[in-house]
């Protein structure tokens, strides 16, 4: 029986394992060092905030693995020996494989700041990081200020977490406006406001210079490039992540920033694959980045690779881009591509609407010349994934999207609807006279 070994029990590795099991009878082993069982990394924040217990982040009950004959080994892989198809684990243990899937995820970036390894300085990625945070910042008495460095999705999550225990938070963001490398300025501006509403001390355009230690080797303050020294007992480093692949350095597997893979997710060595956060495409696919460190892509790579391993070779060909996040109280969804002013190409134009008083807005990207719909960002309005996926496939133009926006609304029943307001602004900006079409189940369920 072919032995498939997977390193990493995150979403990508586990999805691959589950699908291989569905398709075949192969022997499957998952080796992972972090936790006994698969848990949802995206839910770490909710454990600290007291919304859930850690066990709730585990999508499968503990008996699941045995029942599905997926062997779990809690250990750390120190070396991969492709020639002998052998892994070296800690304490000299080894394991042989027929095919290997590397799904080792990421680790938080550290940019060589002075003091980055002090006590009380941490990232937010692993279960251990969560435990560390619980130890260092249990409440506002033990931790009377935290400084977070790096204004991305994890940074704002960490800020929200700490605020849930009323710990004062200073948030250093390198950009002039929050996440404006990704978000268009209207949206980024709205999030700036919302961060401040939550009593987070947002410092835009500010970089970390160094972290100062106290006599016990613990962080006691940070120094910024604005010359400010901010006293604190916790420093959160959330300036992005990089693939967690140091253990592969001398293995002969081709590495870039991540593990280099082709469209079949195979590395330069036959029978060794990489998926999830740690995989790096030779060539970016469409507008995507070569390394896609998000949940959904890890899952999709797992799904595609399982087919390949079970004898039905499938390229990893992700469909239309989508993503979502939550900025404190504001839900964010995106379908297709909406680039920020900093990254968008010349032909991309935006239509932006923002609610006069609520924290609700949308931005629609379209092609300036053809008016083809390119993508949408929504804040505070939920949208139907299937509908946007279909419109993108059908290459609808932006007028069409505006008229049929009600079909795409996914807010709970009885919520206020804003399509009328949106289209009236659209009409006035674009000099059109479109009207909103009533929601139609028939259209929603018709298959393209």
């Amino acid at each position, binding site marked *: 029986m072919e032995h498939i070994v997977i390193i990493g029990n995150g979403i990508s590795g586990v999805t691959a394992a589950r699908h291989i099991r569905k398709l075949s009878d192969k022997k499957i082993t998952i080796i992972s060092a972090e936790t006994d069982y698969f848990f949802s990394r995206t839910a770490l924040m909710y454990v600290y905030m007291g919304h859930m217990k850690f066990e709730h982040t585990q999508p499968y*009950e503990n008996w699941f693995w045995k029942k599905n004959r997926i062997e779990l080994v809690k250990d750390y892989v120190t070396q991969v020996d492709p020639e002998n198809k052998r892994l070296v684990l800690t304490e000299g243990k080894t394991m042989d494989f027929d095919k290997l899937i590397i799904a080792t995820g990421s680790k938080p970036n550290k940019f060589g700041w002075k003091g980055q390894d002090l006590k009380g300085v941490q990232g937010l990625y692993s279960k251990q990081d969560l435990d560390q945070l619980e130890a260092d910042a249990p409440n506002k008495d033990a931790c009377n200020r935290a400084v977070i460095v790096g204004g991305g999705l994890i940074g704002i999550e960490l800020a929200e977490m700490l605020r849930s225990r009323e710990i004062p938070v200073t948030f250093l963001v390198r950009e002039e406006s929050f996440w404006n490398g990704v978000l268009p300025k209207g949206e980024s501006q709205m999030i700036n406001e919302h961060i401040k509403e939550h009593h987070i001390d947002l410092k835009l355009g500010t970089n970390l210079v160094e972290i100062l230690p106290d006599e016990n080797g613990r962080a006691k303050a940070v120094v910024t490039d604005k010359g400010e020294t901010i006293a604190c007992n916790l420093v959160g480093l959330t300036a992005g992540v990089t693939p967690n692949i140091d253990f592969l350095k001398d293995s002969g597997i081709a590495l870039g920033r991540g593990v280099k893979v082709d469209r079949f997710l195979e590395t330069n060595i036959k029978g060794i694959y990489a998926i999830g956060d740690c995989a790096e495409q030779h060539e970016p696919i469409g507008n995507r980045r070569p390394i896609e460190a998000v949940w959904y892509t890890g899952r999709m790579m797992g799904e595609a690779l399982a087919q390949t391993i079970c004898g039905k070779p499938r390229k990893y060909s992700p469909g239309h881009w989508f993503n979502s*996040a939550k900025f404190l109280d504001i839900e964010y969804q995106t379908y297709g591509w909406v680039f920020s002013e900093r990254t968008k190409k010349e032909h991309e134009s935006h239509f932006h609407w923002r609610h006069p008083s609520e924290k609700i807005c949308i931005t629609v990207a379209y092609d300036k010349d053809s008016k083809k719909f390119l993508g949408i960002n929504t804040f505070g309005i939920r949208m139907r994934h299937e509908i946007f996926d279909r419109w993108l496939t059908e290459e609808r133009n932006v007028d069409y999207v505006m008229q049929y926006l009600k079909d795409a609304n996914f*807010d709970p029943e*009885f919520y206020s609807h804003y399509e009328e307001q949106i289209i009236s602004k659209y009409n006035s900006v674009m000099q059109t006279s479109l009207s909103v079409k009533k929601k139609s189940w028939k259209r929603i369920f018709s298959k393209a």
Partner: protein
Amino acid sequence: MKAIKNLGLIIFLIGLAIFTAIPVLGTFRLDQGTFDEIVKEKNIKSDGFIQSINENVVGKDFKGMLSLSPVVSSAIDAANSQHRKNKEYNKVIYTSGHDMAALVGKKSGTGFIAQNKGLMWFFTFGLGIIGALMFILPNVILLGKKGIKNNGIYHESATNRGWIAWMVFIFLVSFYLVLYFRPEFAVNWTFLVDPISESLSGNPAGHWFVYGFMYCVVMTVMAVRMYIKYRHNMYQVVRTTSVLFFQIVFAFLIPEIMVRLQMPYYDFKNAFPLDYDFFFQWNLKELLNSGGIGLFILVWGIVLTLVIVPVMVYFFGKRWYCSWVCGCGGLAETLGDPYRQHSSKSLFSWKVERWLIHGVLLFAIVMTGMTLYSFFTESSTIFGIKTQSVQNTYSLLIGAIFAGVIGTGFYPIFGNRVWCRFGCPLAAYLGFVQRFKSRFRITTNGGQCISCGNCSTYCEQGIDVRAYAQKGENIVRSSCVGCGICSAVCPRGVLKLENGPEEGRINPTEVLLGNDVDLMELVNKK
């Protein structure tokens, strides 16, 4: 703000303490005239009992029910055993000692509580309401910006099965035990609400009136909490208003007013088989003897269960009843909201659930079949089994212990829908309709789920919502009561409760949206 909250908590606890102490306080003094009335009213023929009460109770002061109740009980016991010995069966008293003590207590209450009903109402209900509102209202500001506010639920003793939760558990269970099995200790509570009862039905309050009134008060106060907590979520706001309305108007006011108008006491929304004694002989007789309105109720009750309920479930899902109308659901969604996370999500509990709830449904149907058979044939047994004893068993085990003591008492430990999930025969029936013939579903939003688990954690019905969401599958589970909380707590906008065409309602998917279209088709086709 925090200070107001704390003060509110103290006031609430004082009210609660007085309320809790009242059952054992008070003075009772039965005078001869009142006792003669009771004898006449209850048609008591037991000379032994009458004599014993005359000697030991009448004209004497009793400090608290603890001293009165045993005297009354033992008088009944002694008299009955004497009558049985002498084969004087027509003299045997069938009223239980507890009910008799409650009756005597109700008629003979004197002293502070019975004479200061309004004031005592204020010191119990009044303080409770004021304190609770002072505790709840500051959240408008303290909770900050609107949005999901579940911070600290698993850090706090009250909501994480800590000692406070266990205290609440003990309190609730004891309260229900008193209500169902020791009504004499509820007598002093009935005094507090006598004025209200009299203004509604014209009669003094019984212990079920206390319960009904308290139910409405608790729901109203906790609905305020719901409005504040979910003020961003219109579905929750509208739904909460609906359950509150049906509880206060349909379950509480209308039946009381009907009594005033000499009509049968009836809750028009309480559908059989939840209303398990609807077809009991005494009820049918009462309805048939009540003229036009009785007949109307009889027809309505049958049409409600056979037509209205399933048709509505077809269009809206079982939520229209379970989380929009039903009283049990109403309490669960208001008082029970802080405990919803305790329902077990394991596959094992799902198995237990299916056996139990369908077992209860079967029990209810068999019992009702026997009841109707007995009613029409006028024979009291079937295959040698006494219909009456089957009814008594159901009333005790299911009606009192399961629905009441366990159903509500276990909120703080096993979550707020123990009864609705494991026991309610009506829910089982609605569940069949919802599962197999309904337009309702919870749509899963393509590939957006991040498997965080908020939805599963907060599903009061113990549905592992995430298991479906992360596969891109719609949720069409028979047990879903459509509370909408999974959708509310989902941080990624994945879940939407909606009614739509039946076609496409169930959508099993192996590979999720977002992937290569070919791959999805390939895998999902089979």
